[in-house]
């Protein structure tokens, strides 16, 4: 049984401005001003290292927030059948895709001067690329289904299976070969970074998480309004 919760117009919030999104953008801009002008240049990599503050943070948002939450929402949807969870998973997928795209663009830009190659088939890169493919497939699947209940069930199944697949891809490519540096902050010993860099790095996590939350809320509101409109048109 699907709960066709028609959202109340007030909760859709069409008439009030959401400050979270502009705050997110300003925070990211502020972090970048700090990263470029007020954070020391890394000794070995030079200015190229500054891309860390967008690359690693986008990866964190995409992989550990967006897709982890998407898998949880998918699983919960199959149990609870609440349409809100489906709309949330849909929004997480699209916002996550945007951040993964940023990771996949900034990665090669950083890799070229440091590794000497735009791309390498390392475990993390491959897993990220395949996650990107799966999310594209997920969004295509959603687009190819008209009926809302079916769309929600199918995408939840795919979202859940994708979460099971990623460890397999990571593990098999790891067996194949690996080159990506190990994490430099979240590791048992102390982070290998100067204190100024660490502050910039940590604030960029905060800024990107704010931006993520802002984008997610905007995308979720869109999904809610779209479904509401559909319900009203169907009722007419």
């Amino acid at each position, binding site marked *: 049984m699907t709960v066709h919760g028609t959202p109340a117009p007030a909760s859709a919030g069409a008439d009030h401005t959401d400050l979270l999104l502009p705050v997110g953008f300003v925070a990211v801009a502020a972090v970048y001003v700090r990263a470029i002008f007020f954070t020391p240049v890394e000794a070995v990599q030079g200015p190229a290292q500054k891309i860390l503050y967008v690359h690693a943070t986008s990866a964190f948002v995409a992989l550990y927030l967006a897709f982890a939450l998407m898998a949880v929402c998918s699983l919960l949807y199959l149990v609870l059948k609440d349409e809100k969870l489906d709309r949330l998973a849909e929004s997480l997928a699209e916002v996550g895709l945007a951040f993964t795209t940023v990771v996949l663009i900034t990665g090669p830009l950083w890799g070229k001067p440091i590794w000497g190659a735009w791309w390498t088939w390392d475990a993390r890169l491959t897993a990220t690329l395949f996650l990107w493919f799966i999310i594209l497939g997920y969004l295509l*699947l959603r687009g190819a*289904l008209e009926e809302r209940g079916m769309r929600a069930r199918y995408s939840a199944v795919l979202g859940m299976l994708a979460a099971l697949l990623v460890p397999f891809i990571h593990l098999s490519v790891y067996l194949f070969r690996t080159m990506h540096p190990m994490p430099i902050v979240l590791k048992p010993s102390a982070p290998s970074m100067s204190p100024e860099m660490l502050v910039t790095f940590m604030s960029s996590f905060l800024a990107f998480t704010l931006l993520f939350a802002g984008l997610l809320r905007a995308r979720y509101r869109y999904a809610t309004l779209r479904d509401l409109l559909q319900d009203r048109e169907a009722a007419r």
Partner: protein
Amino acid sequence: MPDVALATPPGMLRAAWLVARKDLAIEFRTRTAFFSAMVFALLGLTIFYFAWDATAVAAIDLAPGVLWVIFTFSGLLGLQRSFGIEQADRAMDALLGAPVDREAIYLGKALANIVFVAGVQVVALPAVGLFYNVPLGAVALPLAGLALLAAIGIVAVGTLFSAMAVNTRLAELLLPMLSLPFFLPIVMAAAQTTARLLAGRPASEAWPWLRILLAFDLVFVVACTLAFPFTVEE
């Protein structure tokens, strides 16, 4: 169909077998999907050979990769058809109306698909041996076991996605788009193991890959069997 009048609904395994037998009977009488998958596999093997410089890359280095890529792609042809055949006259509704578990329908479909994929493999494997001049005879048995393990993984995921893709507007395009990322660990593990088998390396070198393959089969057979009822819910 079965000559016994079923007074009581069949058990899970028996129901799965009945579904598989139905699909295989349809396939055996028409043979269209099997022949197209077989010809596709043979054509693919031929074209791949000429996509490389045969003097630069030894055929024995090429064969494992080609074998498993072709195997996977031709398997998709059969998977496409798995739920496609249920669309005529809305046969799917009758199947869902039958007094059997949804899981049994999935397992039956998957079983028929494994037979289909294995059938293509029976043709493709000797063809690789012939065209790529690879001595497969000595490793035939481990290779057959490997093919079965790979087929189980491919079919587990592919059967589920076939049930989903058939209800969408982009059925033919969506099945490969959804399935291929899931086939990556299978193709890698199978190709790496085959390469080691052909090179006569000790089995311990292939063991980590086989473990991935076994784990994949286990996880996805269970997950897809449990997920299938959600894809046919009314």
